[in-house]
């Protein structure tokens, strides 16, 4: 239902984004969209501007020009704000990460940022929003309610871990995990949020080919089970091609080309960008 070609229903529209750092045009008029329920790969060689794009989408960097529209029903009616990010018509530019999270937009980190001194299951139980027990006085006043919620969250955490066949690690302190397991935990944490869209920052960076294949399978499985949208940033063409329905290739701050993985792979400009070094 969610796989393959998708009708034109973008959850994310990046419209003529620009960002300069000093004299360097990191992103220079990039436009692309991410279809609801798709896995979209954003790929490019080092310095192509994909990470800056990613940061502008999640609000860590503010764009100079252009706009980012998230979950907007009617894109054409949105005014062209200078470098603004809107969510369902509301301006969320520059909001802190925890607010972006509440809009259903969850990011992972390129380098896993697990809480090493906590167990894996509590790393996950941390995530659900609005827990009663997160208010200082509630564990004292309404322990039964906190207990019930903790149970529901533990159950959800187990389901997520089971999806990745990592449930045997539930009670392990996260510091004891291997590099690959940390990558999976990063993905699991994003899933705990029941997000609308997950932004994966270089999921296959520093990962051996076996684990990379494992991650690809897991991500495909998650999309099949939940229908969540993925935007995956990467530089590994092989992984992105196996994962994505739609690939956006960036080079020198601009969108070089986009299309299905096969179309993109057969594009001579892309081959040049990857094999021939510099474009233009």
């Amino acid at each position, binding site marked *: 239902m969610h796989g393959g070609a998708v009708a034109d229903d973008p959850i994310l529209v990046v419209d003529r984004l620009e960002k300069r750092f000093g004299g360097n045009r990191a992103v220079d008029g990039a436009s692309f969209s991410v279809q609801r329920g798709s896995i979209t790969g954003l790929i490019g060689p080092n310095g192509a501007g994909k990470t800056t794009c990613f940061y502008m989408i999640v609000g860590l960097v503010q764009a100079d020009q252009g706009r980012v529209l998230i979950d907007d029903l009617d894109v054409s009616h949105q005014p062209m704000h200078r470098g603004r990010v809107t969510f369902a018509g509301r301006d969320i530019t520059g909001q802190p990460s*925890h607010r972006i999270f509440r809009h259903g937009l969850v990011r992972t980190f390129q380098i896993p940022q697990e*809480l090493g001194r906590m167990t894996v299951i509590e790393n996950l*139980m941390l*995530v659900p929003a609005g827990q009663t027990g997160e208010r200082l006085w509630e564990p004292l006043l309404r322990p039964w309610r906190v*207990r019930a919620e903790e149970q529901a969250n*533990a159950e959800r955490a187990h389901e997520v871990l089971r999806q990745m066949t990592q449930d045997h690690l539930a009670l392990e302190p996260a510091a004891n995990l291997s590099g690959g397991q940390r990558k999976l935990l990063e993905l699991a944490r994003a899933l705990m949020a029941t997000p609308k869209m997950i932004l994966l920052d270089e999921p296959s960076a520093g990962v051996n080919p076996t684990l990379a294949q494992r991650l690809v399978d897991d991500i495909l499985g998650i999309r099949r089970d939940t229908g969540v949208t993925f935007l995956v940033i990467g530089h590994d063409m092989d992984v992105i091609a196996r994962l994505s329905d739609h690939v956006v290739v960036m080079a020198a701050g601009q969108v070089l080309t986009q299309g299905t993985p096969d179309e993109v792979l057969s594009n001579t400009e892309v081959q040049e960008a990857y094999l021939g070094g510099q474009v233009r």
Partner: protein
Amino acid sequence: MIEALLPVPTFLVSLSGVMNWSVGFFTTIAILGIVTLGLNIQWGYTGVFNFGIAAFLMVGAYTSALLTLPPAGDFQSYQLGLQLPVVVGWLGGAAAGAVLAFLIGMPTLRLRGDFLAIATIGMAAILRTVANTSEGLVNRARGLNGIPRFMGDYVEPSDYRWVLLATCVVALALVYLLVRAVTQSPWGRVLRAIRDNEATAQAAGKATVPYRMQSFVLGGAIMGFAGALWAHRVGTIAPDSFSDLFGTFFIWTMLIVGGSGNHLGAVVGTLVVGFFWFGTPLIQEDLPKALGTQVFVLRQFAIGLLVVAFILWLPKGLVPEQAPVSRFAPTAHRSALDRLRARLGGGESAA
């Protein structure tokens, strides 16, 4: 027999000597243990760097004293003197600690940790100076005397130390249970997440500044309460009783030695470092003369070494922190597993 073989420390010679020393010692430890628990919430759980604990003890002590003392008499000049019950004084001390934490936290908790550390050090110095120099506020350097005792009217003065010991131990137990209840919970889990990786906590949707404020204020209230207990215990307080060495550095040592991030460690650390510090006079007479006169200077030196040694070789302290945070999590984990298994079992047979 044994005496002939082993030199017995002088203080052990009389049982009543041991008893006298122990009652005073455990009373002190109970109060300092409460302070350490307060610091454990701020630093141990949240990573909030409070280097002005003395300031919190001071406002707690002075607030409680001013609420419970009679109005200022001749040759005295201080505010209030409301003669309220001691219990009200304690609560006032806790409230004053909380207010002070809120005021310091407002401008600094958004900034990096070291700014808060500097602000708290500064606050302790400012409060001491103000108390020492402002006429008509807290009786300046002469301090406040005759601070009433809790239930002092109902007990024979010779037996009062037992009441004091019981009061302080009960207070420590109550604070211990309180901090355990609120921190071994989803709230405590957010605090630990903020301490270990603020970016992760934010990416998991947690607004970190309000949590740091809550933790700082709760810790401040606990320290204020301990300050109030201290005031009613000693009966006399002066600005210089709240030195940085005793009021702040000492408490940090206790937390580092005990192991921050768990409440049992905080109490154990208080006991161990406290014994190290307050036990010195016990052995003084048995030390060689040259050493005996220097022992009080040497123990300051030794405390510094102790901190360094623990940070280098035993950074987790005597009682290391446990990985599970929420007390609800283990049972939630087990029953979640059971339910999932039941459901999966059903699902498989249906398939």
